[in-house]
């Protein structure tokens, strides 16, 4: 647990460093002043720490074991496992930990929706990839589309006023 916390702190510090110029500094060209937005960095630190920690806790710890176990599972068992306690817990934890601050800070919602839905879709792409691998169907060519959908879907959802459904054709078939 301590190791996970330590590694998550390192990841958090790295992302704070990485996002500093864009998230903290903003030049107001109209008034010719530099705006310092250090609150954004606190949110970056918080978000990346939570995501990193839960990722390690739920996926990283049992990841290798799962990889080996998945190879021996039948397709039906695999589907059941995907809907297992761990996956549901992961999404629930991430959602609650990330959306909790958004209740109080409405401006955070756009970021959080983009971020969490991205993550959800990347996970979805990974799951689909595993399913395809297991089913041995000639659908491997579609994997890039899943990955593409993973990124495009949340961005379209963010940008298009028509709502989440507008992004579906990009990632879901």
């Amino acid at each position, binding site marked *: 647990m301590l190791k996970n916390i330590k590694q998550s702190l390192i990841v958090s510090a790295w992302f704070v460093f990485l996002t500093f110029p864009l998230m903290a500094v*903003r030049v107001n*060209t109209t008034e010719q002043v530099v705006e310092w937005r250090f609150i954004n960095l606190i949110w970056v630190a918080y978000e990346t720490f939570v995501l990193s920690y839960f990722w390690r806790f739920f996926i990283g710890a049992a990841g290798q074991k799962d990889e080996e176990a998945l190879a021996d599972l039948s397709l039906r068992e695999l589907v059941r496992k995907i809907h297992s306690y761990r996956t549901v817990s992961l999404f629930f934890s991430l959602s609650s930990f990330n959306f909790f601050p958004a209740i109080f800070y409405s401006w955070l919602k756009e970021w959080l929706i*983009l971020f969490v839905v991205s993550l959800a879709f990347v996970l979805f792409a990974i799951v689909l990839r595993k399913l395809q691998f297991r089913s041995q169907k000639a659908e491997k060519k579609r*994997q890039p589309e899943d990955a593409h959908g993973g990124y495009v879907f949340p961005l379209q959802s963010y940008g298009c006023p028509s709502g989440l459904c507008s992004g579906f054709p990009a990632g879901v078939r």
Partner: protein
Amino acid sequence: MILAAIAAVIYASAYGYTLEKIAYGPLRGAPRLSPLISAIGMSIFLQNYVLLAQTSDFLPFPNLIPDFEFMEPVAHIVGSPELVILVTTIVTMILLTLLIKKTKIGKAMRATQQDMSMARLVGINVDRIISMTFVIGSALAAIGGVLVASYIGQVNFYIGLFGRVKAFTAAVLGGIGSIPGAVLGGLVLGWTESFTAGYISSDYEDVFAFGLLVLILILRPAGILGKVRKQKV
């Protein structure tokens, strides 16, 4: 300008390293199309990240390149910014070529590019080499970005797309894998656009530039300086 370039290089390298770990590392064994799609996805993500964190407006960028006095007699042909860009391009091209051809890490890069499995067998840390390649590539992109932004005089979140398309076209035109070829491709592309804009119409500069690309790819599929490698079976 040097300080700006150093800061840009440090941050771009850090972003390159992180992106490699997040978006390309997990796709190491995947088909070739997957990293490409992932790259497009990451570029969309980064553009939107800058848009959200900053603004969609064009922001003024200070002219970091000073006007040299000795350039005044020929300023109507070549200005100081063009000279600095040309010199920087030549210097980075030479340095990169030396790095790739002469250094240990360059040899490891070439070995990794030729055969990843074999490179692993001879003791090359392939993951580290790929990360290093991304860091070097991002650092060079940062130098290019600072020069372009200083030359144009303004930046916005979308500025990279234009440069990326042109850079990729120049690399294909010159020959993928050849560093002097990429520079030559860039020059040919730039000259084609300038001559078209000057003698025909600026509306057609992209048409002629990409038309030339199509023509060269038909006549020399490997690019101007690219070498056709025969694969022995």
